């Protein structure tokens, strides 16, 4: 308990805000079990998740940007026999990821309002459980707590794909599950190894210790497999297109926007501070894989005819930028990586929502079937255009800021990697513009397709605002994450010397 205060500022509010934000959706989910009537179920789920977002804004408003310690800390013993505790806390790395999650959850519920026709109760139940687990992953400062949340996410996600997914859901869901579980098992072994060396399951306690080099190598590899699968980095990405394509819209959004971030979050939170030497040792390989991912993802995107698949592969490329930033080992790179994670969450999430909107009308994800919407759905095309140009990092949109930071970071380390990632960024423009052109002008014939409803505008609007805000005025975001990353950098340098 005493050691905690070195790195954890306890919560000074009179209520455990992090626990509330984590477990409110769970409470809502349990409440759902006793309810009947589709409408009331949907409303309950929506209200629960909608309350959660302002609650998480309380965290944001109370967040102290002047400290590198974890904030809003909570502590309770859990399994004393093994020194496993219930420790929560957030820092600059996690604050926006939590906000992103709480923002997306109500949007996901809104976008499933009519798209999900059967087993609504179970669907909303899964969504809310997912929210609890995702926020929990970002808040947990205890390895076992982290692992429990990390794995607990798998089951509802699996069910989301397996029950409400597309025609090929069976294959996609099982591949997703087995791939991810395979990675997590090694994560567990690494966690136990760290525990037996340090005698603690506390994540901050395990950071920046003088582990032996070979120990670091093995632990890094075990961590890296788990996180690389989650990101996903080339060549572990094959589960992603399948899962993304088959999942219902809400599932795709959660997958793309939050689940993928957990991989990069893991790299930042575990690999760099716990195994700094091994991270630097494997750095070039990770950079190489990231660059391959960026270029490979770009080329594969060029040949896709399925909108969801295209966006899924573009995720591989975008997340490549995030890992590239992380393994540039510069503050700029890390800031870029974090922004990229956030931006990708918003932009790709929004693109999946867009696909969902058009899918509800045409029941097809093929680009050709949905082409030429420019005159039929002007409002829709407006949103779609904004998110597309944001996706290939058009200046003035959010992704530009993130990629710029990453490129600055990587160019200071390796010109070659920088050059190739520029090529990747160009490819992004090529495939996104191709998609955009098809959707807007692709076909001449007139069809009867209704434009967006108010509900759909409501859930795209916040994301669109974010795209522009972040693109034009990124300073407030950078400011919040800066201190944590500077601290990480200086600590790492001490240990690398």
């Amino acid at each position, binding site marked *: 308990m005493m050691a905690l205060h070195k790195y954890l500022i306890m919560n000074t509010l009179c209520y455990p805000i992090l626990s509330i934000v984590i477990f409110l959706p769970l409470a809502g989910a349990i409440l759902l079990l006793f309810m009947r009537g589709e409408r009331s179920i949907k409303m309950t789920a929506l209200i629960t998740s909608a309350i959660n977002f302002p609650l998480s804004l309380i965290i944001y408003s109370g967040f102290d940007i002047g400290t590198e310690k974890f904030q809003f800390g909570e502590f309770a*013993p*859990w*399994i*004393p*026999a*093994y020194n496993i505790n219930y420790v929560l806390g957030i820092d600059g790395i996690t604050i926006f990821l939590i906000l992103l999650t709480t923002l997306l959850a109500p949007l996901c519920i809104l976008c499933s309002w009519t798209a999900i026709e059967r087993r609504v109760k*179970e669907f909303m139940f899964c969504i809310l459980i997912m929210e609890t687990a995702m926020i929990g992953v970002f808040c947990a400062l205890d390895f*076992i707590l982290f*692992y*429990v*949340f*990390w*794995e*607990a996410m*798998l*089951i509802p996600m*699996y*069910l989301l794909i*397996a*029950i409400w*997914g597309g025609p090929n*859901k*069976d294959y996609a*869901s*099982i591949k997703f*599950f*087995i791939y991810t*579980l*395979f990675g997590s*098992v*090694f994560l*567990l*072994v690494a966690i*136990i*190894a760290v*525990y*037996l060396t340090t005698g603690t399951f506390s994540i901050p306690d395990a950071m920046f210790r003088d582990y032996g080099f070979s120990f670091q190598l093995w632990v890094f590899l075990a961590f890296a497999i788990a996180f690389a699968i989650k990101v996903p980095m080339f060549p572990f990405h094959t589960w992603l297109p399948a899962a993304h394509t088959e999942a219902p819209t809400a599932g795709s959004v959660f997958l793309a926007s939050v689940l993928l971030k957990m991989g990069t979050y893991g790299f930042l939170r575990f690999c760099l501070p716990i195994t700094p030497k091994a991270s630097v040792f494997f750095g070039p390989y990770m950079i190489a894989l990231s660059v391959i991912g960026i270029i490979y993802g770009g080329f594969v995107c060029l040949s896709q005819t399925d909108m969801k698949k295209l966006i899924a592969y573009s995720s591989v490329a975008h997340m490549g930028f995030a890992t590239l930033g992380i393994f540039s080992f510069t503050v700029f790179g890390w800031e870029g990586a974090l922004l990229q994670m956030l931006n990708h969450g918003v932009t790709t999430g929004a693109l999946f929502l867009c696909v969902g909107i058009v899918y509800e009308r045409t029941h097809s994800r093929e680009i050709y079937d949905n082409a030429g919407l420019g005159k039929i759905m002007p409002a829709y095309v407006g949103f779609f255009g904004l998110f597309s140009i944001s996706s290939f990092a058009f200046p003035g949109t959010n992704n530009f800021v993130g990629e710029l930071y990453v490129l600055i970071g990587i160019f200071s380390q390796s010109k070659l990697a920088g050059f190739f990632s520029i090529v990747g960024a160009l490819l992004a423009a090529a495939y996104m513009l191709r998609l955009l052109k098809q959707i807007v002008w692709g076909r001449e014939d007139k069809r009867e397709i209704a434009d967006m409803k108010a509900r759909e505008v409501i859930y795209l609007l916040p994301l669109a605002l974010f795209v522009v805000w972040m693109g034009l005025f990124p300073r407030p975001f950078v400011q919040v994450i800066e201190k944590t990353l500077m601290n990480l950098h200086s600590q790492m340098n001490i240990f690398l010397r």
Partner: protein
Amino acid sequence: MILPELSTLIFSIVFLFLSLGKKKDSAALLAKPLSIIILGISLAGILANGELFSGAYRIDLFSQIFKAVIAYGFCLVIFMLDRQNEIEEAYFPEYIMFLGFSALGLMMLVSSVELISIVIALEVSSYSLYVIIPLRKGQTTVQIEASVKYLFFGAISTGIMLFGMSYIYGIAKSTFLSDILKVLPGVMNQPIGVFALILTLTGFFFKLSLFPMHFWAPDIYEGASNTTTTFIATVPKIGAAALLIRMTMLASASGAQLVNILIVLAAVSMTLGNLVGLVQKDIKRLLAYSGIAHAGYLLMGVLALSKDGYAAAIYYITIYLFMNLACFYVLVLLSKDGKNVVLDDLVGLSRRAPLLAFTLAVGAFSLAGIPPTGGFTGKLFLFMSAFREGHLAIVIIGAVNTAISIFYYLNLVRMSYSKEVESADPIQLTFNEKALCYIFIFLVLYMGIVPFGLLDIFRLAV
């Protein structure tokens, strides 16, 4: 002091008389309250302490905990008999009687600290099972084949065990574990010590269906009736785990040779179980191979030869009881006319009976070891205790196995959730059945999320 055993004995005798009488239908009604009484008595007697029969029979926290768990498992199995339609009405009281005797034998087993009484207790529990395996309606020869196999394998393993015990007696010149403990660690680095202990343990390996004594499991699971399998797959394993822990305690710190052998057995057992499990179609066979794999996991706690490891093993066998019962219960309810359930029968289960599908999912995820279920927590403790003693290899093998096994456990869930059917006639569940399902779900999740109370008790016991 021996109230749990006495009450189980009385339970069995009551059904002995019932089986002599004419009124057979009252059996099921009577069994439930009586089994609850047994459970209550076992829980009440958990702090009892003492020795009987000049030290051959010890009652301590260790044995009382195991008795309570056995009583709990027994009680749950009795409650699961509700919808049984596999056993002839006429034999039903006898069936319950033999279940009772088997539980009695196991309760005696966990208290025995002397070789002869161990053998006797083990045989009491086994003989009852030999009798009830063929009790199955409507099948032709499978159940007979199963029972003969079980009998022969049981006899052989008992023979090997007795052979090992004769070595132990030869070394220690006593049949009391307390005397053996003084002598055996001294010879544990010699072949005779290792051989004696391994051969003796074989009897319990058989009950646990651990490699190389696993051959019986799939056939007997398949051949015996669903309810019988439920019992065989869960309750006797608790007794065997208890004795496995008791016997390996004899080796204490000087058991490096023994540990190496156990590591190999554990590794082969879990790998074999999981790999063969991948291709099973009959769910009972699948769970049999899963049981073989789990015996391997369990051994990880035992081979740590540490307090933590033993506590982890007890924790694991307890959660294994609950999650396995949960899976089997779904099978019992699903089975039409007492037939075996194959994977394809699960299709559309989440439509036909959402609660059953959920119970099965919780059980399967727990068997696979996914948080927040108890299976994960138990496995975590096992991994940690083995890792702490430096057995890195077995931990990694265990981890890889977890990843392999997920496929067939997930298959259970996949079949019931993601496969669609056109005609889905719902399965009606009675209040009792629903309640039992909720109890299983609760227990599995409880042991996953709130492990501290139980774990502390288990650590006190070893």
